[in-house]
């Protein structure tokens, strides 16, 4: 039956850059699905342009980036810039993967709202997204 629906939380889970390790991204995508989110999964090796454009077309509330290549500063900076150009500077962006702690603060300065390192319980990510999307 059709009934009026609340806006579902839509999250883009993307893997920008060149590393090919997507198990973490898949675990998170699956957990978000089970939390009732609509997860748009882009697959591996996305360019920043592809990520930003997918975020726009899918009108997502949040973007989760998984980066294990070490190129997180450059990739994130570029993606944040491209999102702003698309008038999406205010959507929630979170990061996961292998990110050295000393980069957390600089990433937050770029506009990233949270960095989830290895071992983060998925429930923490879910709660964070739920309480921070507009």
């Amino acid at each position: 039956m059709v009934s009026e629906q609340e806006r579902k939380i839509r999250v883009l889970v993307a893997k920008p850059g060149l590393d090919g390790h997507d198990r973490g991204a898949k675990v998170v995508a699956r957990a978000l699905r089970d939390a009732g989110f609509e997860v748009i999964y882009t697959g591996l090796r996305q360019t920043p342009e592809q990520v930003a454009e997918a975020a726009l077309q899918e009108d997502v509330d949040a973007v989760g980036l998984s980066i294990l290549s070490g190129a997180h500063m450059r990739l994130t900076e570029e993606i944040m810039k491209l999102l702003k150009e698309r008038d999406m500077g205010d959507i929630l962006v979170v990061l996961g993967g292998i990110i050295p702690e000393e980069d957390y603060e600089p990433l937050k300065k770029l506009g990233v709202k949270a960095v989830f390192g290895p071992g983060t319980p998925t429930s923490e990510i879910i709660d964070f997204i739920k309480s921070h999307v507009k």
Partner: protein
Amino acid sequence: MGPDTRTLVQQLLKGNRRAAARLMSLAETLSPEAHTAIKQIYPHTGKAHIIGVTGPPGSGKSTLVDKLIHEFRQQKKRVGVVAVDPSSPFTGGALLGDRIRMSRFATDKGVFIRSMGSRGSLGGLAWATHDVVRILDALGKEIVIVETVGAGQAEVDIIKLAETVVLLTVPRLGDDIQTIKAGIMEIGDIFVINKADLDGADRLYVEIQTALNLGEREQSWEPPILKTVASSGEGVEELARAIQDHHTHLVESGEIKQNLERRCAAQLETIVEQSFIRKLFVQAEEREHFHQLVQKVCTRRLDPYTAAELLILRLIQPRIESDSS
């Protein structure tokens, strides 16, 4: 809140992709506000050639759609894609993975791809898929490809939406009886045997051909059966040509008018049916009345047909007191 609906519609008609995306999310709420937006958009639609791509899970629909986008882009056509994946019946969540196969077009401004969760609809599309297609049409896409949920035997809602239905199948799913069953095997304007490099493709070809020839009805369009290997692109050019041929056939035979009327009628029927049902649940008072009737049906004090008549009567004439126990 962002810009109001009217502004979004104006932006959409100027080709603004962000406005299109936001209107799609609005459409998915199925709210009165969403319908207000579609009312404004509708006069600007009807130009796109809507192509449905359906078939079982894993048959290669997304990969084939990716290759079709490529073909249509070679022809300089603007392409919209709506890809539907199932929503969980338990949590309402969904993992929408069709974009993975099409990501090379993410940055092509002539292509707009939108993923949708089916959100409880069982016919292979989501309730709002029609509206998302309308938005792509109004955005100026000349071709709109709709990829259904992985379909089994009876998910045939795509015929209410698409002018041309491409039905994908793959070798070794079953015997020849599968090809003469009612349901999905009846809806293809074009049959595609994908993964045609696998064993059993020739046999499937003969089975489909035989099944199509068993019909006694004289048809003006004989559905072609094509073989493709979507992953390598083999046969996709021929498929794009067959899609174009089908469109030309509809136009030249005049069947395009019946095709359109059939789809409009089906869409209107669905809207009326669903609006009716929704009215039962909008107001607490109506919900209460509905549940009272449910109780009576469960306890055999009332049969379901009489209960339905009472509900309909009350919706048409809200003031009638229908307590008849």
